[in-house]
């Protein structure tokens, strides 16, 4: 059963009253007017806001150290302390990018999901899976996106590798989008923004039986 609208909005109000980020879930858009009104009202109730001195200092350093001339390259943006590609992303990515010692390259490959005890769960006939289109399936406690390529099927976890949010299949761009922050992943689970490396999506075991059924290793 879905979250009641009043509970949905109160959860967000509580977060905002505690100074937390806006953490929205699927379905919150139904109350977008109330949510944006809450954010504006809370801000109004807090009076004029100025940048925190440490934040202002970091901005100043980044402005001063940015390469001269032309638009920033993604690498230069990271060196300058901003950590993300110019205009490429929004939200919490930047804050995370400011953390020291970010890896230079994305983690190659994801961890294999090996539920214990695991069992093969039938998730449909191969013919039910459209070529190259992500399909969300559930195998007990394991949620996955499956991708058919001819007679084979691959699977990645339906959970973002960065925030604990369920991914959405974006058929137009052919990627899995995270609804909680601006991150997306290829059907193989690789992050699409190489300038800010996120871990690879976890890999889910999947097989096609002789009878043409698709099975996922779940619980």
């Amino acid at each position, binding site marked *: 059963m879905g979250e009641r*609208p*009043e509970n949905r*909005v*109160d959860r967000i*109000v509580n977060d905002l*009253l505690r*100074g*937390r*980020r*806006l953490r*929205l879930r699927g379905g*919150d*858009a139904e109350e*977008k*007017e*109330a*949510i*944006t*009104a*809450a*954010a*504006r*009202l*809370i*801000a*109004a*109730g*807090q009076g*004029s*806001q*100025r*940048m*925190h*001195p*440490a*934040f*202002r*200092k970091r*901005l*100043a*350093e*980044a*402005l*001063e150290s940015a390469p*001269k*001339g*032309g*638009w920033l390259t993604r690498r230069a*943006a990271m060196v300058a302390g*901003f950590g993300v590609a*110019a*205009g490429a992303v*929004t*939200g919490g*990515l*930047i*804050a995370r990018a*400011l953390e020291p010692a970010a890896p230079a390259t994305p983690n190659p490959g994801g961890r294999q999901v090996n539920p214990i005890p695991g069992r093969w769960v039938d998730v449909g006939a191969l013919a039910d899976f459209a070529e190259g289109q992500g399909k969300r399936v559930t195998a007990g406690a394991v949620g996955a996106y499956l991708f058919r390529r001819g007679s084979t099927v691959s699977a990645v976890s339906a959970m973002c590798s960065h925030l604990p949010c369920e991914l959405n299949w974006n058929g137009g761009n052919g990627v899995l989008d995270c*609804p909680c922050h*601006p991150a997306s992943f290829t059907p193989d689970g690789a992050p699409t923004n190489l300038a800010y490396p996120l871990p690879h999506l976890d890999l889910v075991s999947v097989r096609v039986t002789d009878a043409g059924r698709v099975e996922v290793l779940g619980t």
Partner: protein
Amino acid sequence: MSTERGSREEGPEAEGTGDVLELPAASRTTAIALDELELVYAFIYARVGNRPDAEDLTQQVAMKAIPRLRQGAPASAIRGYLFATARSVLGAFWSTRLGLSEAELHEDLAMAIPAGPPSEEPAERARRILDGLSDNYRRVLELRFLHGYSLKEVAAEMRSTVGAVKVMQLRALRAAAKVRLDG
């Protein structure tokens, strides 16, 4: 009066609260940019209602604006560019967080985002919102948002139940969304 704001989440730079700003031989351009970015920060904060998101979005605006800042444009031109960028960044922010296309958000954003910095104090803005509401709606939002009351405290104050207050809060926010703040 109790408050729920005491447990404020620490932002990305909780350290250095008392930092004195020391610019690394800051150029005049940087100094101007920082002053303008203060306005951008306030503008963004007024729409997202929290510091972590406001800082992230302000950083994005600054990043996008660096080349313009380097061109030695006058402050007025810089401001125009920064606020145009801020509108774009805010649009992308709400679109991403709500999982809606920017086209679907267009109407809301047009209402929420003015063409420049706000010309009135936040308290005045809050008052304008509340004045546009019925007594009950105004009261629940005043207690909850301006005084930081918990739902239970609001219910006690209004001689109601937590469940009823929660529903009233939702309806009051929907009504508040229809009150034009800008323009």
